[in-house]
């Protein structure tokens, strides 16, 4: 009982500090400090709860134990990242998004395809495409090629729909202006419509970063060589080495956020003119 009150007190104090920080003005600090404080509080309460109640590491390892696993297994974890992220997810992401972008431009050129393919694309985007993973593993083998293939499938339709929507984002006035400049299809495309489509294109690219990593990891549950994040997670779960599983999850979270952040940064550079990036 005493321990519970202690843990609750830590939580409450941290919350009060947080409330005070977030209420104190609108400076830079009061924007990034609260989430950091919140994260640290969660970690501290987690650590305390595990120690005080002596929770078995098979159920929930303490953050300190996860850190130890992270530091001790850096080489293995890096190998997994290379296998799953750089080989599987990234190549699939490039192929899937690239081909969807090109097909999107083609679809935009042919109105018939646009009317036919867009509803189908929207429908497919809601389907559990990840279920195709076992089939891809059968077709392309256990190594990263099958992971790249499922990532291509998962990224294709969200990217296609966003590209086509983006290419429709210019209004009549702007296109008419281009026509008065006597610019042809390609000039209009390159100088007006593609730049205008960029916010939509980057929206698709950002959605696909998460899908790519999920696809590559889940496909490894259906078969993989003896490395890779999905393989490591499923085998370490089987051995009940949960600290290693959490270490892998931490790495996956870092890689996922890093990838997303990189794309978001690129978006800021490319679409600096968009209202959501101007201050």
């Amino acid at each position, binding site marked *: 009982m005493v321990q519970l009150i202690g843990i609750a007190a830590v939580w409450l104090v941290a919350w009060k500090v947080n409330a005070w920080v977030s209420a104190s003005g609108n400076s830079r600090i009061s924007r990034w400090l609260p989430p950091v404080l919140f994260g640290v509080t969660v970690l501290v309460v987690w650590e305390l709860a595990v120690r005080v109640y002596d929770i078995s590491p098979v159920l929930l390892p303490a953050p300190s134990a996860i850190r130890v696993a992270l530091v001790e297994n850096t080489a293995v974890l890096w190998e997994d990242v290379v296998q799953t992220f750089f080989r599987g997810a990234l190549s699939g992401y490039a192929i899937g998004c690239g081909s969807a972008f090109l097909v999107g431009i083609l679809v935009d050129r042919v109105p018939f395809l646009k009317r036919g393919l867009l509803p189908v694309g929207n429908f497919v985007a809601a389907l559990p495409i990840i*279920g195709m993973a076992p089939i891809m593993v059968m077709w392309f083998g256990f190594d990263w090629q099958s992971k790249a293939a499922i990532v291509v499938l998962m990224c294709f339709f969200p990217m296609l729909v966003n590209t086509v929507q983006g290419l429709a984002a210019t209004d009549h006035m702007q296109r008419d202006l281009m026509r008065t400049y006597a610019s042809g299809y390609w000039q209009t495309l390159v100088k007006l419509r593609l730049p205008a489509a960029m916010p939509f294109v980057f929206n698709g690219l950002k959605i696909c970063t998460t899908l790519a990593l999920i696809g590559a990891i889940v496909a490894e549950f259906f078969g993989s060589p003896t490395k890779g994040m999905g393989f490591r997670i*499923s085998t370490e779960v089987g051995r*009940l080495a949960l600290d290693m599983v959490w270490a892998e999850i931490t790495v996956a979270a870092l890689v996922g956020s890093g990838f997303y952040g990189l794309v978001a940064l690129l978006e800021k550079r490319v679409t600096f003119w968009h209202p959501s990036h101007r201050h």
Partner: protein
Amino acid sequence: MSDAAVPLRSRIWAGQVIPVVVVVAAIIAIWYAGAVWLNAPWALDQAGRDEVELSATELVADTWSQERPVLPAPHQVVQDLWKSTIGTRITSKRSLFRHAWITLSATLAGFALGSGLGILLAVGIVHDRTMNASVMPWVIASQTIPILAIAPMIIVVLNSIGISGLLPKAIISMYLSFFPVVVGMVKGLRSPNKMLLDQMHTWNASRSQTFWRLRLPSAVPYLFTSLKIGVAASLVGAIIGELPTGAVAGLGARMLSGSYYGQTVQIWSALVMAAILAAALVALVGVAERATLRVMGGR
């Protein structure tokens, strides 16, 4: 210009039905062609061993009727789907209806939990400054984390403390459907502009009155959009949640056991069943959306 003035041919051409039908027909045609292309090596190999020459029509017929094809032809999948749903008793272990129901129940439980939790959290975030400042960034950051990767761990940990069956899968579904709902709902609850909020102020409305009469109604369209994303995501969660338990029951288990034993037709029919479920669930949310908006005096 009246409708009759437009020639019938161009009206059909301009509609949406014909293009969609053409695209779907093209996909099916490509599927059949792909089945021939991918299954031909095995058929030729088999014929080579029996030392018979296959004519072109025989080859095509063979590639569309193999027992374990690399890519089953659409009609094989439909046949298997028919056999394992209508043609099998619902209590049988082979009944696809039974497996679909197991997945569906986990999906619905997870979806209900996830959207309930998501709405509550969104209300908290909108009304409490601290929660907005400290929790919201984590909600957004968590979208970039491949949350499905922890599915096996959740299943195993919950199993070891004696929780098994529907609940672990529902928790994974909950995790997946919860984020779109929070983000959409926060956006929706914040959608009333300054003018509307000021109007509520001039009427001396309390916080709860502003919430019930202004914020909540204006959040409804946003809510339904994110519920559609959420329900599709929670089906994915339930399917993935069935993988690590060792392929006992459910659509995910059918896929896994199919991939163990090379039963490609079985994988495809489970996949089609999952697609039908997903489409039906999204459509159902769409119907609820239209009904709700009509009751609210629809726009």
